[in-house]
């Protein structure tokens, strides 16, 4: 779980966060292109979940498996929920909610990796 795929998710999420923060600074609403880019990230997160579960099943080392899957599902759930919550708010704050969701992704990916690495209280 420390592979380049996780790094790619982190980098793309940070790029999308930067893009969204530029929109916030310019006071522009999020457009269809941002939504499409978010869709690409979401597709990658589906791959992260599936790949993570496959790796987990094929591995016999000790780690918190329920928590691991929980974090993977959390990764997947956050962007669409944030987008729905943000969409009704046509203001800077609404766009900031989307930026916040993208900024959470690196944290979530890090937690996934920490849980995978072993017991950490």
């Amino acid at each position: 779980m420390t592979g380049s795929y996780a790094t790619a998710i982190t980098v793309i999420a940070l790029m999308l966060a930067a893009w969204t923060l530029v929109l916030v600074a310019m006071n522009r609403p999020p457009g269809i292109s941002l939504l499409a880019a978010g869709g690409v990230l979401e597709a990658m997160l589906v791959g992260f979940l599936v790949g993570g579960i496959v790796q987990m099943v094929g591995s016999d080392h000790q780690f918190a498996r329920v928590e691991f899957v929980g974090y993977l599902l959390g990764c997947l759930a956050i962007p669409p929920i944030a987008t729905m919550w943000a969409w009704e708010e046509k203001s800077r704050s609404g766009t900031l909610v989307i930026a916040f969701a993208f900024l959470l992704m690196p944290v979530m990916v890090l937690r996934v990796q920490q849980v995978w690495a072993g017991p950490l209280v």
Partner: protein
Amino acid sequence: MSDTVDLPDTVDRPGPAPTGQGFGRLLVAVYGVFALAATARSAVQIATQFDEAPLAYLLSAFAGIVYIVATVSLARGGVTSRRLATMAISVELVGVLVVGGASRLFPEAFPHATVWTGFGSGYGFVPLVLPFVGLWWLRHTR
């Protein structure tokens, strides 16, 4: 429309300002993340390793419920919700201060971290700042 004169802003508003709009959108999103984090984490811990640190896990679960109440009531933002939000956020403030202080004074009593341990240091101190922002927002939108 009737032919009466325009009333001042403060009178023609039907109730208090909504707490889930404007900056409140972002605030609810942040509260939602903490609701999810604290609740999901404590649910897993209580289900799988409750005997290890029952106090810490129950405290996390309690924090999770407080965050859920705060999130939902801030998002709804009616008169009752506003009262509920004020209560939940006050409990949150007391919780983070008491648990934060206790975990500094008696670290051996808190071997397993919760959201509020060390004033929320494991979460970038956001749990410490959040209740102040929440209470400020409730005042601001009153």
